[in-house]
């Protein structure tokens, strides 16, 4: 940091004016370490953006979510619509749909999961590297939807852990965008050091 020019004043390198550190109106205690917010305010006044490493990493993670292609049925068509020109999922950084799960970090389960597909779903999920998230798109993926019968797994959360559920049959593309935004907020709030199981 800069030199102490005078008592109660902190001079930042390259600055043009001294900045008074401390709560408004009260004299700064000599030798006190400024709080993070005070430092951030001081730095912002001279054009320095401060943050924590955790926040930057989380920002990087949620701003470029790469979905794994897991479109199964009708919801896949709306997922394709969400990534197309009108609804434009790439505004949120998620337009790169990777076919290989090894290169993806979010799996959007779009469609009904039949009994034969369940093990495949789990295998694809297991192949994704950490950190990974799952969005369950549509009623069939969330709870079996309108198919309460022998053939459909009643909710993919019986097979993989799910972060965001999207209702709808099929959900509008805006619903998928909303889910991506919610997932981004969730990732922003997740500590970086936690590892998904």
């Amino acid at each position, binding site marked *: 940091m800069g030199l102490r020019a005078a008592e109660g004043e902190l001079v930042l390198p390259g600055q043009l004016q001294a900045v008074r550190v401390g709560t408004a109106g009260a004299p700064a205690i000599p030798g006190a370490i400024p709080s993070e917010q005070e430092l951030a305010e001081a730095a912002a006044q001279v054009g320095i953006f401060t943050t924590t490493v955790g926040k930057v990493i989380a920002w990087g993670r949620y701003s470029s979510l790469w979905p794994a292609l897991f479109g199964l049925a009708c919801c896949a068509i709306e997922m394709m619509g969400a990534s197309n020109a009108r609804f434009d999922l790439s505004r949120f950084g998620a337009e790169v749909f990777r076919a290989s799960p090894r290169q993806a970090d979010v799996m959007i389960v779009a469609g009904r999961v039949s009994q*034969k597909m369940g093990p495949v779903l789990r295998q694809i999920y297991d192949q994704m590297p950490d950190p990974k998230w799952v969005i369950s798109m549509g009623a069939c993926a969330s709870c*079996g939807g309108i*198919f*309460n*019968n*022998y*053939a459909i797994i*009643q909710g993919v959360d019986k097979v993989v852990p799910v972060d965001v559920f999207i209702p709808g049959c099929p959900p509008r593309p805006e619903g998928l965008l909303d889910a991506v935004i919610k997932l981004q907020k969730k990732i922003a709030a997740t500590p970086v050091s936690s590892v998904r199981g």
Partner: protein
Amino acid sequence: MLPTGALVVNVERGQAKVTIPVDRLVESATALRSDPSTLYEMAICMTCVDWPERDLRFELIYLLRSLVHNDLAWICVLASESSEIPSLAGIYPGMDWHERECYDLFGVKFTGHPNLTRILLPDDWEGHPLRKDYVSFGEPVAFTHNIEWALSAQDRPEYLPGATRGAVERP
């Protein structure tokens, strides 16, 4: 031209329905395909209807279409659970998959089929879902009028309400 040995012939809405015995099936299909007056070249589908109260509970229906004469024929064959039906996959290659589906969902066995395995369900599935005695529901949905569904298997009462929720019973 109708196959000999036909039991019942019925023409309804421009579609001819013929019921024939199992042993006449292959020769009838071959004749229907190649005879110039019928030329049923297109294999539409093959399915099965389950009438559990009858002795011959499975009614197999083969649908064939003749493009030249622009009509549709139903070939019906009655079979029981233990009947062995000759496969028509050699005459109509499309019947291959339809017969596999019939085997998968009803349990009807076909002889001479190139690969009679389950097609729609996992290979280790037990039971044949489209039979009438196969109760199909994924998981019980608990409403106030059938709360016993939400109970575990031990606590559930004996009379399990049927596969549907509160619908009118069949006459």
